């Protein structure tokens, strides 16, 4: 029997996807289903003086209309876990006294169809008094700024200063200090399936069954229970197929909580499916950070120290229940990365503004890589040093490792970033490229190359920022009476292919073909508790480690029982293709199904000290590890049109052994595509009054098949003693790409003296940087 781990098996998920049998949230229906539609704030900031719901209630098909006051009277407010020094004003799913961003839900209409609900939403009469707005993080924390939450007395929600090593000493030794400001714009996750749910309350049992498009069903269950005052054992969350998330479906989405509220109060089923406009206005925006960097350097390119000040614009409300400050804390932890940066100051401020909430996005600390790798290129250009050489000069040598990461408890070990860089340099043909670039410039063609190096916590080490629970993961395994295996995972996949990857490793371990192993997920009644779900590149190590641990326990029990039945030493037994056989005696064999049936139906025939239960739960504990990569991007910038053509894109990466090579490549390529979109196309644009300007896919542009190049991937795999040799790879594609692409664009535009200090580089900005337009 050939092992399937490490091979491109056909995914368990795909037959239903290509035949139209998938079941996403909007494909779920229920008897007498009701539909929710929301009346949203047309203003970025407004006082709610009066709401008249009577005209809506009189419309055909309308069952109920709820306001913020209705919710506030009967549920708990959305609040953050308390963090010292963090201002976290409570709020409700519907705005109560004030609306604080354009698109904030104010009224919920429940009707017999979505169309009827939307018709009635139009009939709600609101008296709103527009208030002064603030849409810039720096202006928001100025003394005279309009306040979003009067009770806070400020829009500065959190400020934190950390120092590592001794930057004063490092800067005193510097030949020069390079000072830059880098601006990362606001963009959005935009999974193709937006948020949505079908929430059903059963007045007979008192149970809420909430089907959702979510990446953390257990965390959502906790939220529904706590917020809506239901005992936890009366709340069940189900996630079927989930159409992407990229971080945007890991929290408590306000409309979803409101729909569940309506279901409970009406004793019915209520569906809410965000349309694209709702998703773009209020379904999550991200990444908006401005970073001031001071880098102390020697003239030979040695980086002596870094001082960084980051300002994050969280929009009007914090991401609940995970506080927004997690993102800059992660950026702080990871910024020194694999570089010899030991003297490091990091200050950050989180401001609230009249914009939609900032939610996690794939590699939520990506700003650290963008800023660090841009800074290295700026230093290199300033000092006349090659960008590859400056990285080689400043990366830790293997001889200096292992050592603690500058910023925390994690250990830098098994780093292969230098090898990734070397592989990328070789793959692109760096020296030949520089010749080609010089010749092209002579002909008025502007080629550029950019590199970025990073390490990705996959899974995440501890870092000492209060997320210690991430280092364990639990799974259950059950050998069924027919000899097939069911795995119950805490993961909540939304594209990662866990029904396949977990089945691959468990099939090989127990000795069954893939189609005899099923991976069950997304049902809080069946899947073990976790407060994370799928995210943070944890599944490859943590979920497979947990599932394998549970499978091994079952296998050991099966072999002991089979040994008894066959009169063999269990140590001589192997399981192949569902048959237990002895390596010592070819005659001795028994189907797994037979063993299972004995254990289930006649366990009393086995010795008393045998464990005969064929279902078990195992908690896996792993200290974490690094996935790492070097991205290399080659661009051809047309200074007549401002169009950036990506000629080549290379990723040299080490994520350990791949469980499924095509899934690994897909994660990398998909992440790179998102980074390309962020730089060249996407922007969650607001005007100065806080009016949101990108409410359709004709304004908010996602990359198409013509915008994303073929990504060349070089895999670096080293043998390891770790029995769980797989590392996560979900986030790196999105982390390395904005840096590599913006570095390449600045390199292309070097003849024009262009300084790329912002991440959004649409054609008009390229033309400005090239001096073609002003």
């Amino acid at each position: 029997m050939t092992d399937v781990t490490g091979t491109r098996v056909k995914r368990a998920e795909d037959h239903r996807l290509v035949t139209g049998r998938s079941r996403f949230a909007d494909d779920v229906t229920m008897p007498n289903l009701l539909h929710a539609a929301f009346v949203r704030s047309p203003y970025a900031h407004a006082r709610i003086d009066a709401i008249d719901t009577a005209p809506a209630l009189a419309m055909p098909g309308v069952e109920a209309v709820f306001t913020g006051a209705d919710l506030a009277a009967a549920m708990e407010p959305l609040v953050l876990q308390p963090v010292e020094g963090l201002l976290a004003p409570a709020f409700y799913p519907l705005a109560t006294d004030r609306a604080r961003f354009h698109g904030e839900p104010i009224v919920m209409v429940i009707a017999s169809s979505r169309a009827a609900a939307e018709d009635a939403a139009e009939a709600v009469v609101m008296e709103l008094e527009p208030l002064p707005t603030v849409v810039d993080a720096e202006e928001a924390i100025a003394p005279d700024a309009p306040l979003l939450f009067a009770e806070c007395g400020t829009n500065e929600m959190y400020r934190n200063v950390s120092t590592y090593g001794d930057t004063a000493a490092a800067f005193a030794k510097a030949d020069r200090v390079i000072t830059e400001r880098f601006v990362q714009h606001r963009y959005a996750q935009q999974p193709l399936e937006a948020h949505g749910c079908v929430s059903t309350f059963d007045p007979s049992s008192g149970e809420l069954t909430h089907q959702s498009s979510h990446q953390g069903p257990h965390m959502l269950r906790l939220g529904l229970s706590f917020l809506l005052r239901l005992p936890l054992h009366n709340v069940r969350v189900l996630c079927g197929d989930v159409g992407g998330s990229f971080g945007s479906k890991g929290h408590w989405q306000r409309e979803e909580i409101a729909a569940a509220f309506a279901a409970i109060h009406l004793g019915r089923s209520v569906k809410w499916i965000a349309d694209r406009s709702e998703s773009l206005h209020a379904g999550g925006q991200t990444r908006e950070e401005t970073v001031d960097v001071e880098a102390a350097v020697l003239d030979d390119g040695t980086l002596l120290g870094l001082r960084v000040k980051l300002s994050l614009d969280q929009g009007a409300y914090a991401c609940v229940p995970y506080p927004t400050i997690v993102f800059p804390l992660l950026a702080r932890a990871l910024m020194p990365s694999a570089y010899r940066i030991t003297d490091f100051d990091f200050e950050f401020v989180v401001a609230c503004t009249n914009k939609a909430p900032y939610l996690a996005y794939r590699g939520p600390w990506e700003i650290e890589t963008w800023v660090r790798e841009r800074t290295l290129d700026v230093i290199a250009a300033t000092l006349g040093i090659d960008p590859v050489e400056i990285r080689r000069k400043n990366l830790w040598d293997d001889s200096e490792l292992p050592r603690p990461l500058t910023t925390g408890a994690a250990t830098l070990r098994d780093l292969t970033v230098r090898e990734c860089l070397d592989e990328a340099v070789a793959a692109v043909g760096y020296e030949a490229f520089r010749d080609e670039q010089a010749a092209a410039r002579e002909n008025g063609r502007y080629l550029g190359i950019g590199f970025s190096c990073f390490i990705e916590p996959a899974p995440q080490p501890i870092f000492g920022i209060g997320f210690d629970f991430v280092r364990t993961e639990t799974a259950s395994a059950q050998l069924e009476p027919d000899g097939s295996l069911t795995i119950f995972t805490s993961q909540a996949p939304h594209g990662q292919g866990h029904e396949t990857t977990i089945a691959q490793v468990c099939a090989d371990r127990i000795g069954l073909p893939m189609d005899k192993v099923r991976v069950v997920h997304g049902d809080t009644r069946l899947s073990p508790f976790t407060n994370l779900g799928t995210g943070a590149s944890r599944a490859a190590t943590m979920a497979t480690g947990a599932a394998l641990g549970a499978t091994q326990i079952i296998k050991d029990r099966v072999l002991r029982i089979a040994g008894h039945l066959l009169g063999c030493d269990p140590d001589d037994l192997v399981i192949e293709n569902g048959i237990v056989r002895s390596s010592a005696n070819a005659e001795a064999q028994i189907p797994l199904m037979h063993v299972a049936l004995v254990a289930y139906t006649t366990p009393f025939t086995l010795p008393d000290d045998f464990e005969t239960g064929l279902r078990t739960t195992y908690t896996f504990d792993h200290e974490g590890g690094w996935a790492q990569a070097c991205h290399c991007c080659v661009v051809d910038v047309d200074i007549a049109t401002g169009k950036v053509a990506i000629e080549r894109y290379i990723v040299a990466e080490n994520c350990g052994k791949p469980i499924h090579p095509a899934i690994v490549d897909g994660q990398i390529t998909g992440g790179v595509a998102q980074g390309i979109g962020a730089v060249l196309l996407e922007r969650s644009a607001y005007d100065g009054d806080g009016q949101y300007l990108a409410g359709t896919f004709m304004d908010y542009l996602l990359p198409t098949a013509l915008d994303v190049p073929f990504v060349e991937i070089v895999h670096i795999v080293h043998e390891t003693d770790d029995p769980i040799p797989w590392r996560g790879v979900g986030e790196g594609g999105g982390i390395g790409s904005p840096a590599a692409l913006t570095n390449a664009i600045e390199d292309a535009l070097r003849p024009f003296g262009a300084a790329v200090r912002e991440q959004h580089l649409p054609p008009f900005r390229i033309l400005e940087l090239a001096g073609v337009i002003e």
Partner: protein
Amino acid sequence: MALMTAEIEIAFTVNGIPRVVRVEPRRTLADVLRNDLELTGTKLGCEHGVCGACAVLLDGEPIRSCLLFAAQIPGRAVTTVEGIAAPDGELHPVQEGFWESTSFQCGFCAAGFTVVGAALVDRGGEPTDEEIRHVLSGNLCRCTGYASIVEGVRAGLRIAAERADA
């Protein structure tokens, strides 16, 4: 309002089966397929004609079912993603191609790509990757970066040719 909510009767075929529905004139074809005919394979990603998730074949040609009213297509023949495989369940070459190429991740876009890809493969010929990408550029995928989907179409073309030779 009354005109738009007064129901009208429309007869058309879906996946070869004659259907008669009574719907409001304002209802889109996508709505009617998903809600009245319970063909939920067709997905709605944007409802303004950009993402292509709702693609179906109308008399064999790919169209966006979110941009058509059901009332516009009396007598026409619609093929949804549920009708792309053969009635006996044998997958269309492009479905096999997508499956063997691990083309999708979350798969919310898969129905649209399957419909458009099937039309592309059925047209035959030897399209270049650039031509395939051009055809696929009317459909958005947020997960994959498209390389695997291009590979899947190419595999579909190969499988179609193999079946024709067999």
